């Protein structure tokens, strides 16, 4: 790249251009002053503070946040809940609900035939899942008599009733396979409990 190498006269041009200082033109400041006046905002005392230029965004954001907090504190409460908010003591016990011990369990669901899809039989689950209903009963600590406890009103429990019968499909009718052979499945090994119940 001989052509691109800097030649001696170019080095001199570079040195002269870099070091040369032009004379000051007093008339040039008039144009600069016009430019400064016509282009707000010029550099000012607030320019160095980042928050001074960000207050336009911070102020509305702060107002929105304060309004949201005020609404959360002062939002209207339904009349049925007024004055009945529970106060937790941290000592509530979980006790069995004696009234609901006789509720049905899944094991009581009888087996029945599927009328809509003959051939598909719903069977009851093989495993019984005992369900023990619980309810939370608040207990009072006699050591703290001065603390006023606000408890929710005692709501009557709903009468015991049978759970809706849930039909759980556990078998699906097998479609004949289109391949030339049929795999033999050992149903006794796959479902021993079902066979035992029959």
């Amino acid at each position: 790249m001989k052509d691109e190498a800097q030649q001696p006269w170019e080095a001199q041009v570079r040195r002269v251009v870099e070091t040369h200082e032009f004379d000051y033109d007093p008339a040039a400041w008039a144009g600069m002053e016009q430019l400064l006046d016509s282009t707000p905002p010029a550099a000012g005392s607030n320019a160095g503070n980042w928050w001074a230029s960000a207050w336009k965004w911070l102020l509305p954001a702060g107002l929105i946040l304060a309004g949201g907090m005020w609404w959360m504190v002062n939002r209207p409460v339904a009349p049925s809940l007024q004055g009945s908010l529970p106060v937790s003591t941290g000592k509530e016990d979980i006790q069995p609900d004696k009234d609901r011990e006789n509720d049905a369990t899944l094991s009581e669901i009888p087996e029945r035939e599927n009328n809509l899809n003959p051939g598909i039989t719903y069977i009851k689950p093989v495993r019984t899942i005992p369900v023990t209903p619980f309810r939370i009963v608040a207990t009072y600590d006699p050591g703290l008599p001065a603390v006023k406890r606000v408890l929710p009103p005692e709501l009557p429990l709903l009468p015991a009733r049978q759970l809706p019968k849930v039909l759980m499909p556990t078998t699906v009718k097998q479609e004949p396979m289109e391949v030339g052979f049929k795999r033999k499945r050992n149903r006794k090994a796959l479902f021993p409990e079902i066979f035992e119940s029959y």
Partner: protein
Amino acid sequence: MPISANSTDEELRRACLKGDRRAQQALYQKYYGKLLGIPMRYTGNQAEAKDLLNQAFLQIFRSLPDYTDSGSFAGWMSTITFRVTMDHLRMEQRYRERYRMEVPERTAIDSRIEGQLEAADIFRCIQQLPDYLRVVFSLYVIDGYQHKDIAAMIGITTDTSKWRLRKARQLLQAALEQDYLNNDQSA
């Protein structure tokens, strides 16, 4: 102590940060002559160069809060002036024109005029170059950029940059020699 062009850079900078117009004028006066050379070697006339310098000073006054003491203040202002000049060149279509011109081939400048070159003559000859050649010459020879950087800066190819540098050299040599001969004859 009153603010003047003789004040230190730090004093001027602090006063300008407060919006002191006298400090801005003092800073302008102090660096006018040094910074004007940057747009002068990229533009075709002095009026355009002065307009660009004012734009650069406006940018300097606005950017003063961002200045960190990591480098020299004069160098920081030179960088801003160079960027403002480059932005101007990118916006002006005439610096990207691609017409070709026939230039007589020259190999080296006359050795008699080496050492006789004066700043005013050099700036005048540089400004006589076509815009699209002057930009490449100044970027490569004076500011030391490579062709790939020049190509990216002004939106041309690397080969075009090389071609323009070659033509600019030839034209500038001819202009400097002619300028020397004219001065010699007039003397």
